[in-house]
């Protein structure tokens, strides 16, 4: 794979994945075929991080790779089957996803571990991550306040924490387990600067910390887990300064056991953001591995939809770069 010949961490990670799961070699080759240098660079850094996190886990990197295979074969595939048969996600209610997934800690642990690797090996995940690193983060100016809602595995927050110019970094989640996982990941990765991780229900305005609004808020792979993603974005935008940015990454046509809201493409994602009263500044769609965007749309295959939106109002108070 020419695209990654100068990427030592990627080569290490991929060699370990293929040694553990030889049948995955073809998929991996397809995923990296023609991957742009900027995306490869971010993927290489992600691979370094995931190798560090894997080494610190009880089952080591082999266990992490097994969890990634579990994600592909045992978590996603049955849902893909339902989606292809019916054109819908299997579940539509948060309570059902909570009962089947979120309340099952061992399952969630394997699921989250698998997603660590998917951010590197799944083309749509890798491209969306690069858009966050090279598109969203550079827009935050000196002293900017950044919030991630649902930081999960902590990879996005880690990259934010490396931006020394940021004045404040927060992560909110409704799950104490998720907060603990994020905190542990940041500690393993050696993050020393303060990152405030708090148990906050976005819909509980009274419980949300409001001291100082945010210049940028990230909701990555959150909306598809909610019954009412527009309401979630409305609630999130209350914590944005006028002119502040909401960066949304939502997968379309991407079945998973805890995906309950079906987004059918980038236009749909944009429509949701606009219905939340936000102005769309930038948008992009990244197809699943080995498929052109045109084919992905035609076949209703998974596409990561990235939207950078702006809260209306005079941006005089927002710490943002042009």
């Amino acid at each position: 794979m020419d695209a990654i010949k100068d990427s030592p961490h990627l080569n290490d990670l991929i060699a370990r994945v293929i040694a553990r799961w030889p049948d995955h070699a073809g998929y991996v080759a397809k995923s990296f075929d023609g991957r742009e240098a900027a995306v490869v660079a971010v993927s290489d850094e992600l691979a370094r991080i995931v190798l560090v996190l894997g080494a610190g886990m009880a089952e080591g990197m082999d266990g992490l790779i097994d969890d990634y295979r579990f994600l592909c074969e045992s978590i996603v595939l049955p849902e893909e089957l339902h989606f292809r048969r019916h054109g819908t996600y299997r579940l539509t209610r948060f309570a059902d996803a909570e009962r089947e997934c979120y309340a099952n800690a061992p399952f969630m642990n394997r699921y989250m571990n698998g997603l660590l690797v998917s951010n590197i090996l799944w083309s749509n995940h890798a491209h969306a991550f690069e858009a966050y690193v090279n598109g969203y983060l550079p827009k935050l100016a000196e002293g900017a306040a950044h919030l991630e809602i649902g930081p999960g595995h902590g990879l996005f927050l880690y990259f934010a924490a490396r931006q020394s110019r940021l004045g404040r970094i927060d992560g909110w989640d409704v799950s104490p387990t998720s907060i603990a996982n994020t905190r542990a990941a940041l500690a393993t990765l050696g993050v020393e600067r303060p990152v405030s991780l708090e148990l906050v229900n976005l819909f509980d305005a009274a419980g949300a910390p409001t001291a100082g609004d945010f210049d940028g808020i990230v909701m990555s792979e959150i909306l598809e887990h909610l019954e009412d993603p527009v309401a979630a974005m409305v609630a999130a935008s209350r914590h944005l300064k006028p002119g502040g940015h909401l960066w949304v990454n939502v997968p379309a046509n991407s079945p998973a056991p805890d995906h309950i809201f079906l987004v059918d493409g980038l236009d749909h994602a944009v429509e949701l953001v606009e219905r939340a009263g936000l102005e769309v500044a930038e948008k992009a769609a990244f197809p699943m591995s080995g498929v052109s965007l045109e084919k992905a749309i035609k076949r209703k295959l998974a596409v990561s939809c990235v939207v950078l939106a702006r809260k209306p109002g005079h941006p005089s108070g927002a710490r943002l770069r042009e």
Partner: protein
Amino acid sequence: MDRDAIRAMVQDILRDIVEDDSVVITDATVAEDVVDWDSTNHVRMMVAIEEALNIRFETDEITRPESVGELVDLIQVKLASR
């Protein structure tokens, strides 16, 4: 349906799924032999076979066949029990 007819039908569906009319399969063909016959397209193909033949695969049967020959075997079993 005899094996040849089932294999021909699978070939037509697979050609449609991977958008390549030059695909030719035999009992020995495996997914790795066909460009774009990946896991997602495999699921799409299996669902298309279900709809074409009015049969239903169990979830664990979706990935069980390791070759076209094994898939044809499975389809014959499903047709016989329909």
